[in-house]
Structure formats: C-alpha cells, structure tokens
C-alpha cells in the first residue's frame, strides 16, 4: 500500500483490518507483518528557507534529495544521519521519515544533538486514521505538549509520519581530523573526554580498537579550524603520538555507517552508556569486534549470532539495541532494551491511545 497523499493515507489507515508494517525506504531493518504501508509515495520538499534554517518535507522524500537541496545552499542536516544499507545489507532509498521515525544520529550527535533535537514539527496519521499535527516550523515553540520528540524514535508505533519540519545548519567551510594513537580503550576514553571538555568545539570523537586510533574532528571557518587543531595538539600532547588525517569527510562517513563491520557476520548491537563506563562495559560484552563513537558513549559491538549481549552485561546504566540479528534472535531478545515496569506501563498506555487497535509495527518496541 503506497498512498500518495496524506488524506489517502488517513483513509487507508481508518479502513485497515489487519496490522501493518510501516516503511519509508525499507532500509532500517524493521521486521513485522507482511502487509505494509510505504510512505515513499509522499514526496517533496514543501518549504525551504535557508535564511531561517528551516526545511519542511513530506515523509517519503529521499534523504539524498534533501541533502542535495541543502548542499546547494551550503547547509546540512547537522545530526549526520547514518545510512544503514551497508551494515544491514538492505536496498532501497532512505527517506527523511525513516530517519525521524528511528531518530538516527551520527558522530556529530555528541556536539550538535540528535535527530530529535533538530525536529521542529510533525504531521502524522494516528492508529484511528486521524491526521494530527504538533510543533511547527519555528525553532522556539513550547505551545502545548512536545509530541514532536515523542514521534521521533517511535519507530512507527504511534503513527505514520506524513510531514516533517527540520532545523538545518550551515555546512562548515572546513573540516580537519586529528588522529591520536593510543594503546588501549581506557586511554582512548581519556583522550576523547579531554578533547570534548576543551573549549575547541570538537564535533566528533571516535575510537577504533582495531587500529588503536582515536579520531577527533574539528569544523568551522578555515583559520578557526587551524587554530583549534593546533590548540588540541597541545592539550593532548601527553597522551600519545598525534597525526593529522587526510580525507576527513570519507573517514567520518565510514564511521557514521559503521563501515568496519560491513561484510562481517554475526549480530550487531548498539549500546549507549556514560562514556567513562565504556571500558567496564566493553570487558563484559564478550564481543568479536567493537567501535566507539560519541566520545565512548556509543558502543557498536559485533558478536556471534544469538549472543545475549544484555545478559552478558547484566545491570548497567544505559541501553542496548539489537540492530542486526537473525529473526530468531530478534524474536527472543527483542530489538530494544526491556523497560522497567513503571516505564513500560507509561509507554504501553501511550501506544494504546495513539494506536488503540495495535496495528502499527506491533511488538517492535515491546
């Protein structure tokens, strides 16, 4: 089912007799019922005001179209959404609705914020087939409850997004990346913390244990980048050998898309923790391969198929998401960290009211 207008979608949902899977371009690995609503028929940028840093688009608009429009004005989606195709082996065209529904943010999240922080407004069709709007297209808006944040990262379980309004930012004139060579993870976390708590506006801090390299990104006007890189070299001089990388854009795109895991088998987990907890968490994971982003706050882990990473971790502050796994593993462990009883009561209550018939991506989020 591929409606081409919001009204058509609303009518279709109102008449649904069975649960459905909601898909944008189908690149994010959402499993579910056979029957599917695709939003890729709802396309087009409806408003773009570079001088106001705002863009409004239909949910099915390809991310590539949006990035091209922004590029033409020297702007960008600052939250740097990941492309899941290489990691998940999916095809199709990533859509802006898919990015928002899954609240996908890349390396710049640590400085600029997550996708949800750049989402200004939504329109969606709820489980009864009613069109609802929340937020708008202005940056400051506290009019009523913030359902905008709620819809971001709700994975289609509360409604089918139809239109999104986003805050965009200028694309930096220049980017540079420092490489700090370290011996082990604890030291890597110290380097990243030192860089992120400096006043030099580090917009990416990642570590790949396979080559022992910490990557630190600085962006902005050329002179400013040169100055800050220089200052960072001084601040971090005690930690290890420091070199400057070439090809920054490609380096960070590879990190954003977790490229070191591409073509490798096993399950892939994404674990969000307090950065300085990362070494302890890593020791408990029993993973085959890891990659650290967000200054250590985001751990990508690859483990043998069927590994219960949450079981290995036991109690910890944070959450672990199964991003890629065999269907049996997904069924037994679930994509998302189970919630404490009181929280579960709240989220189930919300789902019950937004989608009383339980027809949108049932079971996906618990």
């Amino acid at each position: 089912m591929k409606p081409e207008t919001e009204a058509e979608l609303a009518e279709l949902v109102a008449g649904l007799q069975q649960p459905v899977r909601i898909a944008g371009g189908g690149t994010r690995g959402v499993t579910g019922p056979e029957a599917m609503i695709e939003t890729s028929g709802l396309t087009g940028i409806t408003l773009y005001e570079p001088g106001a840093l705002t863009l409004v688009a239909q949910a099915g608009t390809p991310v590539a179209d949006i990035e091209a429009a922004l590029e033409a004005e020297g702007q960008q989606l600052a939250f740097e959404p990941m492309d899941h195709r290489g990691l998940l082996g999916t095809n199709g065209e990533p859509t802006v609705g898919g990015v928002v529904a899954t609240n996908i943010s890349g390396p710049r999240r640590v400085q600029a914020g997550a996708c949800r922080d750049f989402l200004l407004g939504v329109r969606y069709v709820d489980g009864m087939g009613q069109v609802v709007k929340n937020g708008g297209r202005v940056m400051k808006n506290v009019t009523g409850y913030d359902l905008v944040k709620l819809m971001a990262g709700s994975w289609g379980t509360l409604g089918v997004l139809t239109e999104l309004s986003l805050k965009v930012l200028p694309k930096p004139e220049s980017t540079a990346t420092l490489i700090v060579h370290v011996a082990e993870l604890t030291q890597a976390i110290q380097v990243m913390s030192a860089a992120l708590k400096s006043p030099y506006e580090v917009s990416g801090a990642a570590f790949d244990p396979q080559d022992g390299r910490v990557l630190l990104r600085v962006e902005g006007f050329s002179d400013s980048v040169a100055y800050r890189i220089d200052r960072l070299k001084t601040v971090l001089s005690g930690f290890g050998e420091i070199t400057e990388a070439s090809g920054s854009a490609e380096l960070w795109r590879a990190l954003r898309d977790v490229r070191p895991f591409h073509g490798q088998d096993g399950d892939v987990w994404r674990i969000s923790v307090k950065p300085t907890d990362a070494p302890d968490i890593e020791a408990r994971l029993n993973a085959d391969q890891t990659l650290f982003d967000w200054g250590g706050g985001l751990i990508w882990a690859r483990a043998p198929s069927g590994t219960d990473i949450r079981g290995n971790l036991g109690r910890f502050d944070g959450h672990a998401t199964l991003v890629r796994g065999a269907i049996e593993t997904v069924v037994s462990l679930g994509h998302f960290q189970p919630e404490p009883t009181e929280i579960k009561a709240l989220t189930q209550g919300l789902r019950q009211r937004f989608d009383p018939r339980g027809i949108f991506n049932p079971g996906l989020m618990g």
Partner: protein
Amino acid sequence: MPAPNPDVLRRKAAVLSRLLQVLPEGAVIHDPAETRVYECDALTAYRCPPMLAVLPSTTQEVSEVLRICHEEGVPVVPRGSGTSLAGGALPTADCVILGVARMNEVLETDYDNRFIRVQTGRTNLSVTGAVEEEDFFYAPDPSSQLACAIAGNIAMNSGGAHCLKYGVTTNNLLGVKMVLMDGSVVEIGGAHLDAGGLDLLGLICGSEGQLGVVTEATLRILRKPEGARPVLMGFDDNEVAGECVSDIIKSGILPVAIEFMDTLCIKACENFAHAGYPDCTALLIVEVEGSEAEIDYQLSKITEIAKRHNPVELRESQSAEESAKIWLGRKSAFGAMGQMNDYMCLDGTIPVSSLPEVLRRIGEMSEEYGLPVGNVFHAGDGNMHPLILFDANKPGDLEKCEAFGAEILKLCVDVGGCLTGEHGVGIEKRDLMSHQYTPQDLEAQMAVKDVFDPSWLLNPAKVFPLDASEARRVAQLAAQ
C-alpha cells in the same frame, strides 16, 4: 479558573492532618496569612491563595504528598520559584501547592562525562555557579535565571537569548527522576545519550507540570567558550534589518545571539540605561564566540554583510566595557518599558521571513487599540517579545490589552508561527490553543495526560482550553 471543588475545601482539615504525618512541621503551610505567599507567579494579574502549600525536602516526601493528594482527590499545582509569566504556577482555591524550593542540592558533577545532577529546586544560574570553577556552564539562560528553578525550566522547556547555538532546555536535559500523581517514582534517561524506548524525556520537558513532579535532573554542561563579543547595528527600516539577519545566517556564521529592538524599545532603553544606542528604526545586537582571532574573523564577515544594507550605525565592541554597554540596554528593556507604564509581555514565535509583515500589522493594531507596543525579539530564532503598554489603574485597559495581545498571538500563528516560544501556555494562552490546534491535535496531547495522570489532578486547568478539558476534569470529580 474553574470553581473550586467544595468537597475538597470541606476536607481541608483531614488532608492537612495526613500531610503533617509525612512532612515535618515547617514544611506544611496552612495559615491563610502564609498561603497567600503562593497566590500568584510572575503573571501577577491573576491571584488565588491555595488551600495548602507544602515544601518537601526529598523525593520520598514528594511521593508521599502526591500519594495522599491522589487518594484524597486534591488537585496539586507544582511550583519551582514562581517566575512563570504564563500563570503556570497559579493556584486554585482547592489545591495544594507543591514547592520544590527546599530541594536545591547538587548531587553529582562529572566533567569527564560533561553532566551535572541536581535537585530541581536549584536555580538556573546556580547550576552554572556550581561548575564555573572548571570553566563550564549550563547553556539555557532564561532572563529570570537568577531566580527561576530547574523544575520550572523543565516544566516550561525554557529557552534564553543564546538558544540559537545551544538549544533550549529539552536539548540540554539528559535524565530525570520524576514522581507521578499516584506517588510512584520513575527514572528516565541518565548520563548516557538518548534514553532507550519512546522519548518520554522529550515529552515531559515542556509539559507544564501536568505529567509529574520532576525532583532530580541530569543536565548537560558545556565548556565555556574562550570569549564572546557583540556588534551593534542600526537600520532605518525593519525590513532591511530582517534581511540583514537572514543574510548573516545564510553566510554560514552561527552567532550565539541575534537580538532585535524596534524604535519604541530603543528609545525607552536609551532613556533608561544610557547605553549609547543610535536614533533609528531597528537595532540589532549580534554576538559571536570563540578565540580573539575567531571573533575578529566572524565579526568582520558580519559587518561586511551589514554594510551592504546601509546601516545608520555599526559599532563593533572593542573591549569588555563596550560589550557590557551594548548589552546593558537590551538587558534593561523590560525594566525600561516598565518605567513607562504597566506592560504585558507576549512571547509568540514567527518565521523570521515574516518579521516585516508582523511588525507592520502590530503597528496598525497598536493604532486601533490605542495602546503603544515595543518589540524586542530573538531574531535568530523568530521568538518575539512584544511589550504592550497599558495602565492597570484605568478601568478596561487590562481587558483591552489582553484582547490586543490575543490578536498578536493569533497573527503569529497565522503567518506560520506559534503562540509561545519560551514562556509556556499556562492559563494565559490556554484558550487560544484552539487557534493553533485542531480538536484532534489537542485530543492527542490530552491523551498523554490521561496516561500519566488519569485522574487529572496535576495542574489540571492549564494548557488546554477549559471547554476542551472539561469532560476529563468533570469525570475526575464524578469518580470521587
């Protein structure tokens, strides 16, 4: 406000005695002479002493209070420091005010992970105060930051002058401990980024104390920039000033603040603070951050853009004293306007491109209503603060002012903006909500309250138009 529930008023003594069992003597206020302290917030035109007020010191005490009020069917109005400009903490005669002012401890500071955990009665500025020794700060900076509490900041999703770069409260809130109306305690988020599951943290922030009472908050802290400096520019035309803002943003520079003032405000501020403002139609203050060299570079680009728009004045600050002087006028805008007369401060947001049209319409309406308006404006993000002058002692003037204010807010919505950018809806804009939202839009929001507070006892008569929320509030009464 809806009429108080006579049944609750009748049971005041019983409720009081139950509260005294769970709170120390001095934490329960019941003498009408003392409850009067809580009769209003910063929206002083509306006043009503509460039935009782409580000042718990721990999350456990908050939980006990809410459990008792829940069992007794008593409405609860949470209160931070009472600085709401929208009536967010306005009591009803049958309510218990729950003030978090005694809960002001710093629980944890962690520079390596860049967060602070505080009890929410702590004031906004004292959060920065707690991390300043390490050159860190807490970014959201509402103008009441000396007095306002983090609890209220979270309830209203407060912003400030610097949110173009740093965002508002919701972008800087990592986790909360919150007590629901039935007394249960939930923890959401923490020191890690992006709480798992549905974004309940984002939902709670800005819910105006209607979903729960937040007692602890984990907040993101940032390293202070090396320096900051403003440039002041004056124009003879609002439209040109608006174009200049748009051109600065399009150039790729992201200033930390872009403030706009119109003629009336410029004159008032100049007379009040003697900041050396030029005599012009529109004034912009643009501030940038970084090292000295970075500031110089950005300001040179900004002034180059400004020159293309023929400014009548262009003054780049050369020293800390000059910077302070440039900001002095803007920061005293409310005081300066207050000296001229009583004023009502509005808070609508508009798309920046609509600025000239909105200012023109406000000017026309000002003539029609016979009430002067001064405009200060966070131009980078479209958040307007029209200040309507009126005389509170003149019969009918307040009503006229409110009608005028409502027209301005409707205009903000009609050009693609919203009713409130940072003050919140409270009671002030409650009945205008239907202008921005359809019944279905409001129903979706009220359904959220149904989940968190099924008995509609937490701050019940706020945010939603009274007729829209009536069925739910009445059902609550009938259930008792």
